[in-house]
């Protein structure tokens, strides 16, 4: 029982991280219908920026802020350069472009910072807090949960309750009609990329310290799991991304704890299949589209 509680809490803490990656993907997908394969690499690049600032200034929060700003800037830069025309070219070309960008960014980081893992500190202590005898979560875990929760609610509110949010959704589904209604489609798309860049950078700042440290490929597998989470939740839903992330985290934690660590990806796959077989468009898919 104790172990179950332990694995559950561990899974939730992990899940919050996958959720943040999932949210970044969902944001871009919701606003541009692009699956950004370079999302992880862009996030890592932002984290390197943050790390450099932390090392130079000694202030974690300065570095943290830098990373988020850099993430936004990279998002804008990606959209305004290589992804500029990608909006109009179906869903496959952007995937290949994203892969190209992923390779370029990771190589550039290896050139600039070297391929070895670099240390990235956390905002708060990772020592587990003792609550009534059992140690479950650390301050950093709480920060992660809080940060992801706040980001999710903020974004959900923006998308569903504000004018900009409506414009973002309209642009995603039908850019031509959006333009006819006075929406500056280019700006909206860029905004989507900026937000995703910021959320991605946040994800990297949260996830990297829990792993081996910062290295160019640090987010490759996290990206796969984040994508899995997003798909489980339904790619259009922010709360779905959150739930999907936590579900993935739990599946991984249980599989790893009860079955063996090598089965973690298999567990993620099985979870994904299970969900998709029941709900082919994810847990939080809207009503199925009327086809005739």
């Amino acid at each position, binding site marked *: 029982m104790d172990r179950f509680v332990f694995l559950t809490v561990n899974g939730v803490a992990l899940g919050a991280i996958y959720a943040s990656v999932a949210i970044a993907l969902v944001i871009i997908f919701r606003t541009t219908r692009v*699956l950004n394969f370079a999302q992880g690499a862009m996030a890592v690049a932002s984290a390197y920026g943050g790390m450099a600032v932390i090392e130079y200034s000694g202030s974690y929060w300065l570095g943290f802020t830098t990373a988020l700003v850099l993430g936004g800037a990279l998002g804008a830069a990606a959209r305004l350069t290589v992804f500029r025309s990608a909006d109009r070219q179906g869903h*496959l070309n952007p*995937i290949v472009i994203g*892969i*190209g960008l992923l390779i*370029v960014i990771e190589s550039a980081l*290896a050139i600039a910072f070297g391929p070895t893992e670099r240390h990235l500190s956390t905002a708060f202590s990772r020592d587990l807090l003792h609550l009534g005898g059992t140690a479950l979560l650390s301050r950093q875990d709480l920060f992660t949960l809080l940060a992801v929760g706040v980001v999710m609610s903020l974004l959900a509110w923006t998308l569903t309750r504000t004018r900009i949010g409506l414009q973002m959704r309209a642009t995603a589904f039908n850019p031509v009609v959006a333009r006819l209604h006075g929406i500056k489609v280019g700006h909206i798309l860029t905004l989507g990329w900026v937000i995703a860049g910021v959320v991605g950078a946040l994800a990297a700042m949260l996830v990297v310290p829990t792993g081996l440290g910062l290295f160019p490929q640090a987010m490759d597998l996290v990206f796969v799991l984040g994508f899995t989470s997003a798909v489980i939740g339904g790619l259009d839903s922010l709360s779905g991304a959150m739930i999907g992330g936590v579900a993935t985290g739990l599946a991984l934690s249980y599989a790893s704890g009860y079955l063996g660590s090598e089965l973690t990806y*298999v567990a993620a*796959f099985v979870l994904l299949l299970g969900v998709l077989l029941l709900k082919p468009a994810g847990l939080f898919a809207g009503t199925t589209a009327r086809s005739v």
Partner: protein
Amino acid sequence: MLQIKLVRHGLLTLAAAAVVALLVLQSEDVSNFEYIQVAAYVCAAAGLTLLIGVNGQLSLGHAALMAVGAYSAALYLRSGSEDSLASAGDLFVALLVGSVTAAVVGIAVGAVAARLRGPYLAGATLALGACVVGVTTYFDHLLGGDQGLTMPLTEVPAPLSAALTSYQWSALVSLGTALLVLFLLTNLKYSPVGREMAAVRDHEVAAQLCGLSVARVQINTFVVSSAAAGAGGAILGVLYLQIASPGAFTLFLSIYLLAAVVIGGLGSMRGAVIGTVIVLYFGRLIEDRVAHLGLSTAQTDRLAAHLPLAAFGVLLIVVMLAVPGGIQGTLGRIAPRLLQLMETVGGKK
């Protein structure tokens, strides 16, 4: 019409086979060895072309199906006597086993895939691709874990052994298989069956109203595509790596295959070949160019080590931006215009 098309590409295949044979006989061992890899990738890319281009289903997990081909071929070859060479007969059976096993796995994957659309399918297949390592480590007594399964070497059959080096033999077998796969898949694409695949891609409701079972067509396509990937995996494992190990069938392989298919031009078998050659050769060519820039090793070694890969990334982006329709489509569009241009220029003279 159709018959002309079929006869024409039958002849084309024969001509290609002749060219390939000449090429192999002319080439050094190193080049022949690389042809094996090209052949393996072409098989998988052709299968992926059918799946994505003709049937409209995306797969980011084809490397896993190639792994199935490689491992099953390995298990078959290892079931014989341990250290002896594998005969030509065994080799052919192994390729067939790889292809058939992948097809069987393809039934299961295809059945799931048939329920999924677009990005959901992409997510599921991506996750499938991430499972290879886990499965091979979990069943390490059978699949050899991280190290994989080594395979017996294959011998050149006696009547040919005087004339061919083992590389020439392997390259001939691989490229021959690839041509066969291309021939069969092209036949399929231009057959009523291929038309049904395209119909399902274009309009599922209308396809149903024509009496098609959308799921069945999608599963069938997945199976054929998996069989091609399995053949490619078996070639890669048996003839190229001589080992089946998880490190060779990573997500990146799946993604490279996708890049090859898209760069070549979706839906065209010729595009699959062009794309594969670009991803493999042109990528390597740039890498060599960059590697020979003469960067001094002491200070710039990080640069030297990673610049080639960066250049490859740039290549992918540039090709996609310059020819968004893929190379094959662009050739198709440019060629008539070039002809026209030549005619007008000729006419003026």
